[in-house]
């Protein structure tokens, strides 16, 4: 692993405060940050690894905070030590890992209990997988497991469809 300081990540960091009331804008801001998958560094301090997209997203959140009557400051930050950087990345990766594990479990349940519902479950799982992947900056191994479980469900569904072609009513009786 490269350890030169030059390879250290840059983080867009938002330091913000939103008035407690009214709660609607405060909750909207919280939801937005959660959807972005930010690293929560402290009370009112969040960060994302910097790229054009994350920078722009946090700029708009900062704007949203100001509109809600709060205060917001944006910084570009760099961890002083490689260890601190890893702590941040690990925290983000383990939050995503939990979400991927949930997807894997749901896919396995759907695979084990065939039902006429499977196609709908698959659609939903693929959608949720995309949502998690969008906010996944440091993919954990659980990501591949979730993708594999969802693909297995898709294959099973495809096979069932092919088999059901000849006699759909019979296939449904056995499912």
């Amino acid at each position: 692993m490269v350890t030169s300081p030059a390879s250290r990540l840059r983080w867009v960091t938002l330091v913000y405060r939103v008035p407690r009331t009214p709660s609607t804008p405060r909750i909207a801001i919280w939801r937005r940050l959660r959807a972005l998958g930010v690293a929560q560094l402290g009370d009112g301090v969040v960060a994302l690894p910097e790229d054009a997209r994350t920078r722009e997203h946090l700029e708009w959140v900062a704007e949203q905070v100001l509109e809600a009557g709060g205060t917001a400051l944006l910084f570009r930050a760099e961890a002083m030590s490689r260890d601190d950087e890893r702590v941040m990345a690990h925290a983000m990766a383990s939050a995503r890992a939990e979400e991927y594990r949930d997807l894997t479990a749901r896919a396995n349940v759907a695979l084990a209990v065939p039902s006429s519902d499977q196609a709908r479950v698959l659609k939903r799982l693929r959608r949720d997988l995309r949502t998690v992947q969008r906010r996944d900056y440091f993919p954990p191994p659980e990501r591949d497991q979730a993708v594999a479980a969802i693909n297995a469900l898709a294959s099973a569904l495809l096979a069932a469809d092919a088999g059901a072609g000849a006699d759909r009513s019979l296939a449904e009786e056995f499912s």
Partner: protein
Amino acid sequence: MRWATRAGLHIDRASSAWLIRRFIDPDAVFVFVSGPEEVPADATPFDMRGVEFGHHGSDCTFETLLRRHDLLDPALWRIAAIVHEADLEDDRYDAPEAPGLDVILRGLSMTQDDETVLALTGPVFDGLYDYYQRSLLLGKEPPS
């Protein structure tokens, strides 16, 4: 009239520029800047922090432009749903087209300069507009 926005066009700026030229100011000329301090005095900024035509509340710039200009056309609001989801990804709308359009714009902005992105995406949004107009022919209300 001159309009200024940040360089590095993505979906919200590209679609907003299209909207401005087609529905708000047919003579619009676009200037691309790197920050608010570079906006020419005679230009109207859009999709930048702290300006009227930017994100407001949970609206993206395209939606803000529609609201501030009282554009209620349902086909435009259908495009707004796609732009919103491609830009903010918050599931406010059901817009399955969004991820597709998003990667097309990302690819273009990697390989083309801003002027070219505008020239190429104009006909895309024209096409989407006509397409949704046809599909909405039988009348639907725009989201409030």
